[in-house]
């Protein structure tokens, strides 16, 4: 039983080197790669892709520039005003040449075909002019598509880089307060919303409005009366219907989107929880429940069907009714010699051409509003200043010995709820200090102040005597190594993940980090060694291996100061042993701050600092603290009694 299609990794789409695999984005529907039947076409396309120049954007920790803070549509387009002007000019050409046809037919009929005026020369001339007009239209349309396509692509590119750069400089507070999905939206749909507007929308707004004017003008030359009647018959109803339709289908679209999200969410949970489902005999129940979820999606689809079925055939009927009216009213005028037959034919042919501009204008107006709202959101984003700004006169931090001092530091994520209160603490170069304490005592927060993820509300944090706020962020963080509680892996090769701090190094250096944490065996077992691609949500690595990679990454950075938030997640015994050994290698010869969740880890430290309710309540070596009695001795007591099995033999006792 072959299952060919399954299990193939997502193909890479990057033309150049070093790009990341396109895994499913965080928001929206999963993108599972290009379907195999289209792969050939895509490959052919990629062959024609030129080398792109090296990225050149400069990153700076300074707040967004004044221009970004005033972001608006006009500004975005004016940056490429030549392309914009050209696009508008081409649209103007199209809206004239595209409407010449029926007028030429009318001319041909009136001056070449009706009794008394039969002249094939006129017909020939009109036909030739018609063909010429068609050719001009096609040429101008083609040029316009190319010009607006470039305009849109450039503006979007520019915007993507600027928004991303700004996101990069915002502080951790922004990332904790704002949901990941919302931040994602700023970089994805808010920018993509503008794509359609720029590529087609703005030119269309101009072009369609102009088309209406041109048609009306041509018809006026034939019969003012019939023109006014035609407009009165068609335009108001069509406009109202289209406005209704645009709103209703917007709502319908949202319902469908929620519906499919529900369906895929339910399916995804059933698949991920498949063992739990089976163990609890929930299959039948879930089948019925899924039917309800799919049913809701189907109802939403049926709702949009209702809207589409009303609008599509409805406007079509309006067109035919208009023709009947033209035949009646215009026919009478022809019979009374108020109108030529040719002109009546032209009216018939122009009638339908009123429809598209009105429909498009209403829809484009909607796109325009969406674009405006996206621009507003982006502008708000640019106006958010980084919370740990770099001073314009910040100095480079020289290579440090690693002395860290907390000087009367107070801090709270919210002003009214302090997390740290007047903490004073001095850590000597090369010393290993473990912070222990209850969850919420403030030990992780203290660590975040050392890396300057946050600034203290009062007091100072100093490294080698430099206030952290007076040095550049880059020079500070390059000398710090951080191992977060949850190891984070980027989608990319093992090498990229380990050599994250200094990417362009020889393999030996990467291997040195691998060896230091005892990961060689694991890497060598991987199909492509260091080049094996790992995914953040992939299951190719155990959580122990992921932690080891995070440690290797910190080791490779060779920081002077190490801040390590111990993982609380489950490890099997072997990994745990390895992680502990790796930790020993990492701690050697550097200042280290450990946020310890396990007392075994705390015992590794030269000094243990007990944090309670935002204050340092005890400080000293393991033995000293045990002797002292107090909170640490109590914690230790609980731990010893809890972790020993009843039948534990005395010889096995480890603490």
């Amino acid at each position: 039983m072959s299952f060919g299609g399954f299990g193939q990794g997502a193909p890479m789409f990057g033309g150049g080197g070093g790009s990341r695999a396109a895994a499913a984005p965080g928001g929206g529907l999963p993108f599972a790669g290009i379907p195999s039947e289209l792969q050939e076409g895509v490959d052919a396309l990629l062959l024609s892709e030129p080398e792109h120049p090296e990225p050149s954007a400069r990153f700076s920790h300074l707040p967004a520039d004044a221009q970004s803070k005033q972001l608006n549509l006009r500004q975005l387009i004016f940056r490429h005003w030549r392309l914009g002007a050209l696009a508008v000019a081409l649209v103007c050409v199209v809206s004239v040449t595209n409407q010449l046809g029926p007028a030429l037919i009318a001319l041909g009929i009136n001056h070449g075909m009706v009794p008394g005026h039969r002249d094939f020369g006129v017909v020939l001339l009109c036909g030739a002019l018609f063909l010429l007009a068609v050719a001009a239209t096609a040429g101008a349309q083609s040029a316009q598509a190319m010009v607006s396509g470039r305009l849109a692509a450039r503006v979007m590119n520019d915007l993507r880089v600027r928004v991303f750069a700004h996101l990069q400089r915002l502080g951790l507070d922004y990332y904790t307060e704002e949901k990941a999905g919302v931040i994602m939206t700023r970089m994805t749909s808010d920018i993509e919303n503008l794509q359609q507007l720029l590529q087609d929308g703005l030119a269309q707004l101009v072009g369609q409005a102009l088309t209406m004017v041109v048609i009306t003008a041509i018809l006026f030359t034939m019969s003012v009366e019939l023109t006014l009647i035609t407009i009165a018959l068609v335009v108001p109803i069509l406009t109202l219907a289209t406005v209704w339709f645009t709103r209703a289908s917007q709502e319908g679209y949202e319902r469908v989107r929620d519906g499919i999200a529900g369906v895929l969410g339910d399916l995804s949970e059933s698949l991920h929880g498949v063992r739990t489902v089976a163990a609890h005999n929930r299959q039948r129940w879930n089948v019925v429940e899924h039917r309800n979820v799919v049913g809701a999606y189907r109802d939403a689809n049926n709702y949009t069907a209702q809207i589409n079925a009303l609008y599509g055939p409805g406007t079509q009927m309006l067109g035919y009714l208009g023709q009947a009216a033209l035949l009646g009213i215009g026919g009478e005028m022809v019979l009374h010699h108020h109108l030529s037959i040719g002109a009546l034919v032209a009216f018939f042919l122009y009638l339908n051409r009123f429809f598209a501009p009105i429909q498009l204008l209403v829809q484009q107006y909607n796109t325009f509003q969406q674009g405006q709202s996206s621009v507003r959101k982006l502008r708000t984003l640019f106006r958010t200043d980084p919370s740990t700004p770099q001073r314009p006169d910040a100095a480079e931090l020289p290579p440090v010995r690693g002395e860290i001092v907390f000087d009367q530091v107070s801090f709270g994520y919210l002003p009214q709820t302090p997390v740290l209160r007047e903490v004073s603490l001095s850590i000597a170069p090369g010393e290993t200090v473990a912070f222990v304490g209850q969850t919420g005592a403030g030990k992780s927060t203290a660590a975040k102040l050392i890396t300057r993820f946050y600034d203290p509300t009062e007091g100072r944090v100093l490294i080698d005597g430099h206030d952290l706020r007076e040095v550049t962020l880059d020079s500070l963080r390059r000398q710090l190594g951080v191992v977060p509680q949850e190891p984070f892996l980027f989608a990319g090769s093992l090498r990229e993940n380990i050599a994250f701090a200094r990417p362009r190094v020889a393999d030996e250096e990467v291997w040195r980090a691998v060896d230091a944490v005892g990961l060689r065996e694991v890497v060598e077992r991987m199909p492509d060694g260091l080049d094996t691609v790992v995914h953040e949500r992939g299951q190719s690595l155990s959580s122990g291996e992921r932690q080891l990679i995070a440690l290797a990454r910190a080791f490779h950075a060779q920081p002077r100061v190490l801040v390590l938030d111990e993982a609380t997640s489950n490890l099997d015994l072997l990994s745990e042993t390895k992680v502990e050994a790796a930790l020993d290698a990492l701690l050697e010869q550097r200042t280290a701050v450990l946020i310890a969740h396990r007392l075994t880890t705390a015992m590794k430290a030269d000094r243990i600092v007990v944090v309670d309710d935002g204050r340092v309540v005890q400080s000293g070596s393991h033995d000293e603290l045990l002797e002292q009695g107090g909170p640490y001795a109590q914690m230790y007591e609980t731990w010893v009694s809890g972790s020993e099995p009843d039948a534990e033999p005395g010889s096995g006792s480890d603490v």
Partner: protein
Amino acid sequence: MSVATDETGGRAASADGFVPSGNSSRHQAPRAWIDPDRSRSWLARALPIVLARKLTLFSALGLSFVSLLAQVQIPSLLNSAVTDALEHHNGSLGHYVRIVLALAVAAGVISYAARLLLMRTAYAIEFDLRNMIYEHLTRMSFSFYDRVQSGQLISRANSDIRSVQMYLTFGPNILVQCSIAVVAFIYMLTIDVPLAFVAMLTLPLVFLMGVRMRRSLFPVSWLIQARLAEVATIVDENINGVRVVKSFAAEQRELHQLQGAADRLRWAYIRDADLRARFTPLVQNLPQVGLALILLAGGYLVIHGHLGVGAILAFSAYVVMLQAPFQMLGMLVMLGQRAAASAARIYEVLDEQPAVVDAPGARALDRCRGDVRFDGVSFAYSADGPPVLADLHLHLHPGQTVAMVGRTGSGKTTVARLLPRFYDVSAGGVLVDGTDVRELTLESLRGQIGLVLDEPFLFSVSVHDNIAYGRPGATREQVRRAARAAGADEFISRLPDGYGTVVGERGYTLSGGQRQRIAIARTLLLNPPILVLDDATSAIDVQVEQEIHEALRTLMQGRTTLIVAHRLSTIALADRVVLLDGGRIVADGTHAQLLETSPLYVEVLARAQEAKR
């Protein structure tokens, strides 16, 4: 294929609003299944699901045809009206106006009905397909899920179903629309033969260009999707990995990473614009060329007295009318290719047979005593894979708690998976109360076994619904009692909405220890005589571990329990310890006995101790 639609037990009505979601559906189960004959074409295999909706589908197509017939009359009537009533003053104009009015109204109403019916049919077929696949997936065994990535399945359920559904329902409609071209052509022939051919001249080109346009645009639009996903991936990683990026001062590099992706995206967008610039003006303006040709040829015929002026209007109107169906015909060709590939991927799933099913005549297990026996069990995950268990014998007496210990890969987790029959043994047998599990119905067997997994999975529903997962009819009080026994009541009450708090991937995030205790409560509520525990209490706060062990002791009372133990502290929960090595039991006894008699046991424990140090 039949599935019980309603199995609503007594449900708790509660003022707090955390009643479990009801389990009845006003929606019907799928009515048909794909043709199981794999040798047939994908369309032939899909026929039963289409025919299950034949009434609405054929009504929609029939109505659509009628409406088009009405529309085709109109240009021809305009021709007669202009030529006869206006040019030759022969016949009443009002007569023609009334007919056109009537036809317009008829066409509009019928076409509304046709469109609505057709779309509803489309969504009905999609509904059937989705439920069919879901139902099929619930029946699949674990060996299937070991092989298949859920992300792939979800994407199949997402886009592949859509593309098959679109083709199955819109295909016939586009064909109906194009069949109208034949009717229109006949009408034109009755007016004038040569001009009819001139008018139709450009339409095949519209079709051909349409096909070519889509063929070249499809790859580039997928490339754009891929590259949008690439940008999104980088953003996603920089959001989730923001601490790493910041602490390694890698902002500049990440910015370049993104700029590179954005540059590649820009190229794809420009490529797309250029391809559109090449094809769209052609496809849109070809019918205009047709109009010019009608003017030229028609003019010639009018001048020489073969035709009336009305014919020029009628022929022009036909060309405008037929333009859209011919463009859609081009789309249909591409849709067909996509749908065939999508259908192949869907059938691949539907053709899979579950490996573990009820045997014919399987009987229900009720009031189980909890006597479990592994009798010479051998097992491998795949037919040609390495054996994981080899001739394993193990007997658990009712009410006994047995801990399984062994090195990684010794097979202890596998033993636990065989008991609820997640897999079938390759040799030997697993017996519950003396009956081979393969002779029991899956549902009754699993109903007697409670399972607490190493990484408990919580669904994105309320805490109440999560605890009542195996017994959706449980009352609020029952759920609360289970939570209390599992030591979970206290923290649940402190959650923002108490038992109504939605947790799981799309809800409130609970700590590992909290999830554990909810999973224990979930199993307690089932009150199963047999219990399987995959040890998960490793590396949580000492405090929390103690609380969980407390909960586990409550859970295990009076039940036969099999524990997969990874750490020493868990072993302390068991009456008896068995040591597994190489897929066999190599030592069996109390913890103290094993320490004395088995060097391997001491080694495994020493590892545990070493890790703790």
